[in-house]
């Protein structure tokens, strides 16, 4: 467990550096202003990863991480002001860019499989977006009419 935690910390720190670079070039936030927020995010991720290993439930780490992050940023949680103001220095896209950079590099080795997805996956993706949009609109229509709002 300890070995895993140390290795996770290293990987998260390397990723964090990439995100801080992106945050600096893309959002003009100097890295040292964003470091406290990044440390908070890394700590939350580490705790989530540890909970996934330690607890017997079949919830993935991202589930624990999401709940934990929401709790520590609730207005009545002690110190949440700091959590919110520090992490607000890190743009969500600054985290997305390095993910996609590493993903692009990694996808190369799966490129043959990705190409096989091709045009058919384009059709499925359109059905995915249409399905959720129309599904939500239909249910909203029924409830809004029932409530007398429309």
């Amino acid at each position, binding site marked *: 467990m300890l070995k*895993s935690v140390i290795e996770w910390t290293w*990987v998260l720190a*390397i*990723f964090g550096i*990439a*995100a801080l*670079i*992106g945050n600096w*070039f*893309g959002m003009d936030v100097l890295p040292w202003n964003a470091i406290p927020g990044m440390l908070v995010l890394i700590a*939350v991720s580490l705790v989530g990863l540890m909970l996934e290993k330690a607890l017997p439930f079949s*919830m*993935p780490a*991202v*589930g624990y991480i*999401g709940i934990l*992050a*929401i*709790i520590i*940023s609730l207005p009545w*949680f002690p110190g*949440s002001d700091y959590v919110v103001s520090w992490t607000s220095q890190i743009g*969500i*896209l*600054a*985290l*997305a*860019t*390095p*993910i*996609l*950079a*590493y*993903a*692009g*590099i*990694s*996808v*190369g*080795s*799966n490129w043959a499989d*990705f190409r096989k997805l091709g045009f*058919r*996956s384009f059709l*499925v*993706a359109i*059905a*995915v*977006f*249409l*399905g*959720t*949009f*129309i*599904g*939500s609109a*239909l249910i*909203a229509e029924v*409830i*809004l009419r029932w409530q007398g709002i429309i």
Partner: protein
Amino acid sequence: MEKVELKTVIKDWRLHAIAFILVAITEAIGQFSIAVGPGVILLLPMLYAFFLGLGLYFTPLISEKNAKNAEPLIILGVTLLIAKIGVTIGPQIEAIIAAGPALLLQELGNLGTIFLALPLAVLLGFRRESIGMTHSIAREPNVGLIVNKFGFSSPEGRGVMAVYIFGTVFGAVFLGLISGLLATATPLHPLSFAMASGVGSGSMMAAASGSLIGAYPELEEQIVAFAGASNLLSLSTGLYFSIFIGLPLTEKLYSIMMRRSERKAAKGGGPNA
């Protein structure tokens, strides 16, 4: 994370240096938008980073080994992204509670994805990819869930990434185009489509609700309020909706469909069936 040793991943400085440079260059270029009818195609740094990274794989700069080492960075990077989404939701909790049960039930509409797209995916010949593709609209938390559960190189991971990349490139413009079209062409109320616009992505919500406002300017404030609240709810509940309802339901329906097609194949008999 299981296949490669994390220690070798950490020491792969060639990979990390290239990633750092990619991020710096693409973020410095910044964002562009191309107007297409009522919507826009958003070109974001993350898209350049993805395609440049992919291009590098075919040069001597990146080896097969570097590419394999990139995978744990994706998985752990996504955990940081989820943490960031979480701390964005916390301060808004009262607005979410006030938004009420109508918004909550409307989230079930996301299951429309499974009922419409899963049969199509299976029909088109996808196997386990279809689970990743159709369990949700594949935004970051859903990618995180699938990658976390099945791994990035799994069929499910490929499926969710295909829809994720489609959504990143075309999601906003596609929803922008169809929301204006559907709101004017169907008897459903524009406010229902406003709620539907909150799919959990800011740019998609902006594009979808923007073209609704274009069609119904007198409803502007209500459209913005409904779309914003719904988007907040999708962001905060989308992941758990996928964990507890979307993904299990997709897997269940998938296995039912597979069993049926196997039985049909068996019944048909003969080597050609």
